């Protein structure tokens, strides 16, 4: 019996370490299931809706819950990202239309420092609200792997469309026309 004690302890410790590794890996994973659900039309509730994030250039904080009832286009960006700069005018143009329909773009800076983000906002004449996701927890909830990414949230707080690359063509315009018509 005693000769099996040490191997048993070693196996027990190894199993514990494997369990720990599995736990760590599982909690690092991205929620790619959001993409699948949106594609199926089984719209998931937007993650991190209650997460309060600092408003860029202000001492205030804002969360998705504060915008509940509005259609929200979340655009994740960073000042150092070239594609983000390319799509900024598209978003700003769309924002001018959205405000007429009780909808808004919400910029979320990710992996960026506030001074560079403020400079970006100033350079591109952005008028929509911008918040900072310093920890990255908010965008990771959406399964974000980088910038830019765009998610559309309907008036019920569900993710109804998303794009994990630069906005191009009329994707945003066509998507918003459809969603605003559905929620009118």
């Amino acid at each position, binding site marked *: 019996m005693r000769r099996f004690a*040490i191997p048993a*302890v070693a196996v027990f*410790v190894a199993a514990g*370490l494997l369990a*720990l590794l599995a*736990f*760590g890996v599982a*909690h690092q994973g991205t929620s790619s299931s959001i993409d699948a659900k949106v594609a199926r039309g089984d719209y998931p509730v937007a993650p991190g809706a209650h997460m309060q994030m600092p408003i860029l250039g202000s001492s205030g904080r804002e969360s998705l819950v504060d915008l509940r009832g509005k259609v929200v286009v979340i655009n994740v960006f*960073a*000042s*150092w*990202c*070239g594609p983000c700069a390319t799509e900024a005018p598209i978003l700003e143009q769309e924002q001018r239309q959205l405000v007429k329909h009780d909808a808004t773009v919400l910029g979320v800076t990710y*992996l*960026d*420092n*506030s*001074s*560079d983000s403020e400079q970006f906002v100033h350079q591109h004449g952005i008028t929509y609200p911008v918040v900072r996701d*310093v*920890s*990255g927890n908010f965008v990771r909830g959406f399964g974000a792997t*980088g*910038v830019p990414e765009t998610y559309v949230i309907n008036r019920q707080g569900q993710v109804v469309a998303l794009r994990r690359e630069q906005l191009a063509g009329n994707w945003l315009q066509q998507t918003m026309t459809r969603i605003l018509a559905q929620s009118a």
Partner: protein
Amino acid sequence: MTRIARTAGATALLIALVAAPLSLATTTATATAPRASLTDVENDLMCTECREPLPVAQSPEADAERSYIRLLIAQGETKSQILQNMVAQYGTAVLGKPPAHGFNLTVYVIPPAILAAGAAILAFTLPRWRRRARAAARAPAASVPALDPADAQRLEQELSQFRG
């Protein structure tokens, strides 16, 4: 002056001579914290987008981090202030070494624990193995059965063929 008074005076002088340079060094160290360098600071940081150590990362985000660090150095911030500032801007993911709380604590606890457990196992088993080896070496004859005369004769015959 008595002998005791002279000894006390000499001791006080000796203490003053030793303490003066020490206190001067302490004052200088606290007054002028070493100026941070980009190399020194970026060694402790990660490129959060590419998930590589900042010194080797080549990406727009890494460049943005470096230029922000240069700005903070130019503003006269110390290394620890810069690291705090970077965490405030980019989150704890920017740190090369994760902060020691929550799940990250396992990084600091498990390796020493495994080492300690390994050392304990060795400390427990090695003396037993050595005791067994010594005991086996001391009584080799007892463990080998003696040959009976017939087998001994046969062995001798077979060996003589090789000698022959």
